Every structure is written in structure tokens, then in C-alpha cells.
């Protein structure tokens, strides 16, 4: 059976396998037998083997070296390229994070292959689905050169367990000088939060210009916490300084596709819709009955968010 490589991404906080990787392991099964690739500092693989076994990794390639995390992106691409040369996989699937895409691009050049980013589905014949232009169109594409490389958009696939052996295979790491040019000097966490990561969350609550101030975002956070949701923000809210840019949903921010997206005080400009249009269920609260967000909403409340949202938070909390 053909072998498919999946690059593993770990949670920076606890070293567990990220949800996006479980999704990639699940999607990759359509193409063949799945091998996980763990590339990181010494000892990093030991803690994740069980999780990888549960989600269908027949093999786990372990590439451990302190240098992998000391330099940006390039080391992981070199490790993967070496493996692609060794095992000639049918395809490579990588979670669609900023780093994941960059690894994919470098790997494509190194191996003379084509790559497709942000795919939402991969068919057994290798055809991938992409949603383009702010969710307006669905495209089916194929890689026509070399080993197909895909990055999988978060929340497109439901992770499904499929127990496998997860046989460990050590990989010799020998990085070129070129892979050691951009040094990661420090990793700074400015906002510690117990909320799920935006692109991984199954529920997202976002606030827009209508929230009116940074302090008022507490209302959005409270609703999010009552639902176990991630918090997002529209560009207008970010530009006004209400919430940090790394939480921006939209064309120039994150693309999310949760089970439930609640847009609060967001008018729904294309800029924002580009980042959330493929959410399964969309709820909107806005005082302007004509706001374009209502065209997308499965359920809309025309009203004052400062009345509706705290009351909804209270009622959700009361249901528990």
C-alpha cells in the first residue's frame, strides 16, 4: 500500500499533537497508509506516539535535534525532503498553519513537486478541494508534477481514531548551513489564555466595531467562555485597537470554519466574510437590520448587543 507522510504539529504549551494534525492524519488515509513525521527537539516524539497510534500512524519517523527548533521552517523542510527521497511517498499532507505552508513550499522546490495550500478535502485519486475568493467558489485541483503536497485547512475534516502500530523509525538529522540562517531567538507569549486556538475551535465568538471599546470585549469573552469558544475580532475592531491582530478573522487575518460562528456587532464586509463564510452554523447579533452579515446568518438577532449578549451568556450558563 502506498505510504503517505503527515508532518506533525505540536501544541507549544504542552507538547501534545495539535488538532490540525489529527485532521491531517484522518484526511491522509484516503491516499494510503499513513506515516507521521515528528521533527523537533530531543525527546519530543516520546510524548506523542500513543496519540499518533490512535489516529492511524502505521509508522512514526522521529527526527530529533536541538537545531530543528532553533531555526525557522527550513530544518523541517529538509527533514521531510530527505524522507520523501528515501521512501517515495504517494503524497505529503501538512496542517495549514503559516509554518505548514512554508514547509510545503520549500519541500515542493526541494523535491521538484507541486503543492496545494488550504485544501478542505482530498479524494482517493489525489484531487483536492479548495474554497476560494472569500468562500464564493469551490475549486477542484490536482498536483501535476512530482509528489503531491497538500496543506489541510483546519476544521475541514473531523478527526477519527483508527488505531495503528506507530512503529518508530529514527531519522538521522543533518542540516545544511542554508537551513540554519534564520535563528529563532525567543518565543514570546503575550496573551495566555485557556480558550481554544482560533482556527481549531469548534465554536468562535467574534466582536466587531459595534463592541465599541477594548473593555467591552469582556462581553464577547464572557459569551465565548460560556460556550467553551475561541474569541475572534473583525478588522474594524482590530484596527480600532479593541483586540489584538492575531485574533483577526478575515481576508488579512485568520480563516476559520467552526461548527458555530457567532458574529457580534459585525456588519459583515467581504473582508470579514472571507474568513468565516464556511462556518457550519452562523449566528449574528447586530443593531442594523440591513447589515450584510444577516444574509449569511442561519439565525440573526436585530438588537442591542449590550442587552442581548450578556443575557444570552447568563442563560447559557444557567443551562449547565
Amino acid at each position, binding site marked *: 500500500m502506498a505510504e503517505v507522510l503527515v508532518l506533525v504539529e505540536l501544541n507549544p504549551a504542552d507538547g501534545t499533537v495539535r488538532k490540525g494534525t489529527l485532521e491531517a492524519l484522518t484526511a491522509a488515509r484516503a491516499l494510503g497508509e499513513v506515516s507521521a513525521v515528528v521533527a523537533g527537539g530531543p525527546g519530543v516524539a516520546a510524548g506523542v506516539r500513543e496519540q499518533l497510534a490512535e489516529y492511524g500512524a502505521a509508522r512514526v519517523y522521529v527526527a530529533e535535534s536541538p537545531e530543528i527548533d532553533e531555526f525557522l521552517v527550513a530544518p523541517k523542510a529538509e527533514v521531510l525532503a530527505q524522507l520523501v527521497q528515501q521512501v517515495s511517498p504517494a503524497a505529503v499532507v501538512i496542517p495549514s498553519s503559516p509554518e505548514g505552508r512554508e514547509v510545503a513550499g520549500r519541500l515542493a522546490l526541494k523535491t521538484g513537486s507541486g503543492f496545494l495550500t488550504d485544501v478542505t478535502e482530498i479524494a482517493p485519486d489525489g484531487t483536492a478541494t479548495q474554497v476560494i475568493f472569500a468562500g464564493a467558489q469551490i475549486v477542484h485541483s490536482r498536483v501535476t508534477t512530482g509528489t503531491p503536497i497538500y496543506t489541510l485547512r483546519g476544521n475541514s475534516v473531523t478527526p477519527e481514531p483508527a488505531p495503528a502500530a506507530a512503529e518508530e523509525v529514527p531519522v538521522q538529522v543533518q542540516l545544511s548551513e542554508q537551513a540554519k540562517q534564520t535563528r529563532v*531567538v525567543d518565543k514570546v507569549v503575550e496573551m495566555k489564555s485557556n480558550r481554544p486556538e482560533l482556527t481549531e475551535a469548534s465554536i468562535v465568538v467574534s466582536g466587531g466595531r459595534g463592541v465599541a471599546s477594548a473593555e467591552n470585549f469582556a462581553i464577547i469573552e464572557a459569551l465565548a467562555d460560556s460556550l467553551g469558544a475561541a474569541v475572534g475580532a473583525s478588522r474594524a475592531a482590530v484596527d480600532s485597537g479593541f483586540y489584538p491582530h492575531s485574533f483577526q478573522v478575515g481576508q488579512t487575518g485568520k480563516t476559520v470554519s467552526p461548527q458555530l460562528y457567532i458574529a457580534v456587532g459585525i456588519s459583515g464586509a467581504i473582508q470579514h466574510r472571507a474568513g468565516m463564510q464556511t462556518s457550519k452554523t452562523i449566528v449574528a447579533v447586530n443593531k442594523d437590520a440591513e447589515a450584510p452579515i444577516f444574509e449569511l446568518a442561519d439565525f440573526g438577532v436585530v438588537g442591542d448587543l449590550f442587552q442581548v449578549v450578556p443575557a444570552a451568556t447568563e442563560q447559557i450558563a444557567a443551562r449547565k
Partner: protein
Amino acid sequence: MNIVVLVKQVPDSGTQRSLDASDNTVARATADNVINEIDEYAIEEALQVKEAQGGEVTILTVGPASATDAIRKALSMGADRAVHVVDDAIHGSCAIQTSGILAAALQQMDYDLVLTGATSTDGQVAVMPALLSERLGIPQLSGAQKLTVEGSTVKVERQTDGGFWALEAPMPAIVSTWDTINEPRYPSFKGIMAAKKKPVETKSLADLGIDPATVGLATATSAVVDVTGRPPKGEGVKVTDEGDGAQKLVGFLAEQKLV
């Protein structure tokens, strides 16, 4: 300090965009084309570095003849000159092929720093710094919310979820910027007038030593099989809050088994 800024012209992301039905490439001819807005932040950053350190800012664009509009905009902000790679054979090129064209053009230029926007609003592939780093052997510092030049070292804060990574590399290097890095200036009237006289050098694939058969739709590394419009969403429910809005909202969530 010589800085090259990679600028792309894209269909306005605020309008309805489409693929050309004849070959499934981005419909540029019929679109309202503008400068990729995130590239404006890269231009601004280049101008700020130049103002602090001296040197020259050159715009590099690969695109059809009409991309001169985006180039003039960049020049009117204050860039000194531009190189425009234009050749019919480029039409339909994938990111891999385009990176080869940009790399060949950069190899003919003198630069310490290459800057570009972190993503384009049309393709949203967001890998050009990685591809050019790979091709040119220069370090990649992508996704910057802050950039500092110290001697021959470039330092960047790479934006991450809830924080940043501090990156450092020797120059020459390629950096991509997010829209958090600065506030791009508006072109002044004087700037717009001056831009008309600034040199724009056009180059063909032959000028770059690239065989036209190796780029373009026919030899792209990926191909679109088909395109369909997304099925329209069914009509949603809209209620007006009369004190019961929250209750109805939570009722809907409960009905959908979301709470």
C-alpha cells in the same frame, strides 16, 4: 541599503471575484485591479528603513501590462524605481513558477533586503518568502509585525497566536510584513506627480534567461480540474429583539444542539 519590494496587483478583494471560464485562471482582465493591500505595508516599511539608513527602494512586479497601475501607486508612495517583468508566456503560472521568475529578476538586482506582504488577497498561498529563500539561499523572516536593521543583521518579530517569535538573520534576507507593522502613508500630490517620471524598467522572460516553455499554465505544477459556485445558503431566521432576543438565540442554539 538597497531594498526591493515585491508588489502584486490583485483583483479588489472588496468586489465579486471569479476565475476566467476559458482557462480557470484568476479573471484579471475583467476585474477591478488594485495593489495587493498588504504589500502597501511592505512598501511603507521599506521607505521607513530607507529614511533611517539611506539607500534606494525598488519595486519588483511580475504581472500583465496593466499592473503598471500598481507600480505607479507604489512609486507615488515614495519608492525610487521599478522593475516590471511582463511576458504573455507568464499567464497562468503557479507559485513555484512565479518564484522562479522573481528569483531570476532578483539575481539581476543589487539588494540587502527584500520585502513583501505576508499574503496576497487573491491566491492567499502566503509562501513567496519561503520559496525565494529556498531559491536564492537567503534567510526567510516571514510574518513580521516589527522589523529592525542593526548593522548587517535584520531582526523581526514574527506574529504568532497570542504573541511573537523573535527572529534574527544576516542580510541579504527576505522579510514579509503583516498589516500590524505600520500605517502606510497616502501618496501626496507631489508624490503622484513625481511617480510619473520615475524609471520603470520592463523585462521579458528572455531578459531573465528563462525559457518561456517552463512557465505558464501548460507547465504549472498544479492544475484546476473544475470550478463551481458555492451553493447558496438557505434563508436564515431573523428576529428583532423585544427583550426576548437572547432567549430566542439560546433557544436556536439548543435546537441545533450547540449548547
